[in-house]
């Protein structure tokens, strides 16, 4: 009965003049448990409820204080000490302290943790992915997690890492209330539970398949939310997100298709919002193919693809072409000795192909994914455009595709694909997050190319302490990979977002999600 009254009260409240901010998400969260989930909309909702140990500056990949106010490495980057913010409480009133931080980190890292619920299907795979494995693994970055005192936590490492704070700032690693996890048990994070963090919004309800409703955290340590209610709706279809925006039933939305740009700009009630790019869509060439193992052939193909024309045609200009493998915000990691990437020059490409011994070209497979990804929203027509560019220099392309899950598997199965389209969206602002994903021993073996000097540079990059030192190392890596020309960066896309004109103070992060506590909605009808 009490619940009913409360609901009735809340619905009358929201019907009155309370300001509700409504976001159109591209689906429903999979789970609201931190550390166990990697899909965009789950992370976006979690960003509202949880804080991370380290945070990012608004609209940037630079670090800012989060639940830790400062962090320091030891002399050789093999141990990091985090000093925690004082007097912060979880939404359930329990204290955020070193015990809580150690509890969260250990759940993810220690397979034997009593509250990791691994026997009930928890996997925390992103921890292993970004930090080399779990407690006791030979490859794991973290050796130990130690509470020094109530406001200090130390993380000891098996190998030097300068990026540990960046990794822990990623949206996957929200800090949850240990009391709530102990109370809810294995159902923590599902709609039948109440996820509890320290973030700017408090979880109120999750209506399956439909919406998550959040209320402002009046005791937030940072900038307090400026609306009375935040609703995050699940709207899977991109055209429908645009329809809802136009109808005014939602206030702002992410992930509109690039071809919606004109429609958004033509609507006086809407503003197009460009998220800074933090991804790369590229074409990979496989060393196992008899033609592609020739460096000149790969360079010729790199020069034959008219990237700018492709980006203009399929992204409506919402993308950066002719850039290197890392996105524009990490440009400092590029070398000044080589161009960012090969310029479009079909004549030179044809000449180089002749020099390589193929004046009449050859025939090759190009695989494209069957699903829309942030970096390739429409893979098939893009593949067709690439095929047309290559046929201009005499390379005949057979286009191929298959189911997405199978595609991901087959690219790494001997002999792999000849050429295929794939991409990457970054987790945190460090070049290793891009290069390390597709080069070196931890990466996919899709091109059969892993020379020792690349591996060495990657190791050095992870251990380098300053940005200047990193810039030198990744500059060399840029030169090496540019000359080898195994991967052609086609685009760093800027996912299109849009908002009603009364939505103010939204600063989209390149990392794909940000807390909405800065947003005001004055003048909303």
């Amino acid at each position: 009965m009490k619940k009913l009254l409360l609901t009735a009260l809340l619905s009358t409240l929201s019907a009155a003049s309370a300001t509700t901010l409504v976001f159109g998400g591209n689906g429903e969260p999979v789970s609201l448990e931190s550390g166990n989930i990697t899909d965009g909309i789950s992370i976006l909702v979690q960003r509202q409820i949880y804080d991370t140990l380290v945070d990012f500056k608004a609209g940037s990949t630079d670090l800012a204080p989060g639940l830790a106010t400062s962090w320091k490495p030891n002399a050789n980057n093999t141990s990091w000490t985090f000093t925690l913010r004082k007097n912060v409480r979880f939404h359930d009133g329990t204290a955020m302290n070193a015990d809580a931080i150690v509890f969260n980190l250990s759940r993810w890292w220690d397979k034997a943790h009593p509250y990791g619920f691994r026997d009930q299907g928890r996997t925390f795979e992103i921890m292993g992915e970004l930090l080399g494995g779990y407690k006791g693994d030979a490859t794991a970055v973290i050796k130990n997690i130690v509470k020094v005192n109530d406001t200090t936590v130390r993380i000891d490492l098996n190998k030097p890492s300068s990026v540990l704070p960046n990794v822990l700032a990623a949206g996957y690693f929200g800090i949850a209330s240990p009391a709530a996890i102990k109370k809810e048990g294995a159902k923590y994070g599902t709609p039948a539970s109440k996820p509890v963090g320290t973030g700017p919004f408090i979880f109120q309800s999750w209506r399956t398949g439909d919406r998550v409703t959040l209320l402002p955290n009046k005791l937030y340590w940072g900038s307090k939310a400026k609306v009375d209610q935040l609703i995050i709706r699940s709207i899977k279809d991109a055209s429908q997100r645009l329809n809802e925006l136009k109808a005014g039933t939602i206030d702002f939305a992410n992930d509109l298709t690039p071809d919606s740009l004109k429609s958004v700009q033509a609507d006086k009630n809407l503003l197009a919002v460009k998220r800074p790019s933090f991804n790369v869509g590229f074409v990979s060439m496989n060393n196992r193919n008899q033609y592609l193992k020739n460096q000149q052939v790969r360079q010729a193909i790199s020069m034959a693809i008219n990237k700018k024309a492709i980006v203009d045609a399929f992204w409506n200009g919402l993308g950066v072409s002719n850039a290197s493998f890392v996105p524009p915000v990490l440009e400092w990691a590029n070398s000044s000795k080589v161009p960012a990437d090969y310029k479009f020059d079909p004549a030179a490409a044809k000449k180089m192909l002749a020099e390589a011994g193929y004046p009449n070209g050859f025939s090759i497979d190009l695989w494209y994914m069957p699903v829309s990804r942030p970096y390739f929203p429409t893979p098939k027509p893009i593949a067709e455009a690439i095929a047309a560019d290559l046929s201009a220099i005499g390379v005949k392309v057979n286009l191929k595709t298959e189911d997405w899950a199978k595609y991901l598997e087959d690219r790494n199965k001997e002999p792999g694909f000849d050429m295929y389209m794939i991409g990457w969206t970054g987790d945190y602002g460090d070049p290793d997050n891009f290069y390390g994903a597709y080069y070196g021993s931890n990466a996919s073996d899709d091109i059969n190319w892993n020379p020792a000097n690349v591996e060495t540079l990657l190791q050095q990059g992870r251990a380098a302490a300053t940005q200047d030192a990193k810039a030198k190392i990744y500059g060399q890596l840029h030169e090496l990979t540019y000359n080898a020309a195994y991967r052609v960066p086609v685009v760093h896309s800027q996912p299109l977002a849009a908002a009603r004109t009364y939505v103010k103070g939204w600063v989209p992060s390149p990392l794909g999600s940000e807390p909405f506590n800065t947003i005001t909605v004055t003048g909303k009808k």
Partner: protein
Amino acid sequence: MGSYLIRRIFRTLLVMLGISLVVFVFVRSIPGDPALAMLGERATPEAAAALREQLGLNKPWFFNPANPLDAQYPKYMSALLQGDLGSGIKSNIPVRDDLKARFPATAELSVAALLFALVVGMPAGILAALRRNSIWDNLATTVSLIGVSMPVFWLGLLLSYFFAVKLGWLPPSARLSSSVNIEPITGFYVLDGLLRGQPAAAWDAARHLVLPAIALGTIPLAIIARITRSSMLDVLGQDYVRTARAKGLSGRSVVLKHTLRNALLPVVTVIGLQAGALLGGAVLTETIFSWPGIGSWVYDAISQRDYPIIQGGVIFAALVVSVANLLVDLSYAALDPRIQYS
């Protein structure tokens, strides 16, 4: 009748068992697995292998020589017999919870779509049959042809754009407006709104139901109109109708008393068959209209290879279709005295 029912129920259970086995093998035979789908671009062979091990996907399907019960199907079945359908691989949400939360949404939408199809389709079919080869007949035939060949997602987007964005008459998608809340009783929001004494909320739910019901109901509407027409024509040509007319009965009473009931038998069959089709059509309709039902949920689970959800969803859908067909068969007996179950 009673023994017939028991036999039918027993047979349905056997079908469920068969389906559970088929879908179990089928989902695992699709290339690509949950580990790959979960890791996406991060799927290196090592990462995928480690994840498979954690998820128990590397265990044998039916028989583990080392430990006979430590295999996937025996584990699944022993849980299923206790009413436990497992949990979503990534979400950890019990499949049962999801079904409970989502099925009412799909049911409400399907019922609304079927009502729309019957209310428009039957009169159109009757009219077309009575005015054979007239402009009405040609119009009904043409419209139903268009209806059958219209892709649901395209129609859905078109309806949404036209009635919601352009005209602003109806909401573009979802089940309720952001400002409206209904505590479910039956899970049918229109009904729950009335039961809770919130007429405004019920009205809001009804307005949200209109466009998706039209989108989902268009194909069944066309089919029902065509079946009604041909079955009416068939009955109108029967001897007993001619006799009735010869006795001097008015056209109206011939149609109402002698023809309709007999002509509607095939329509009832179609309704039964449509139960499955509606569940299938719900996949696209729900995706387009952000409708939180089971169609879009199972569809997503297939692309994610979320085995427990696909299995639970398919078994449940099979149950729904079986029950619908049982009801159709029983209503047959009520409509046609020549049919008796014993």
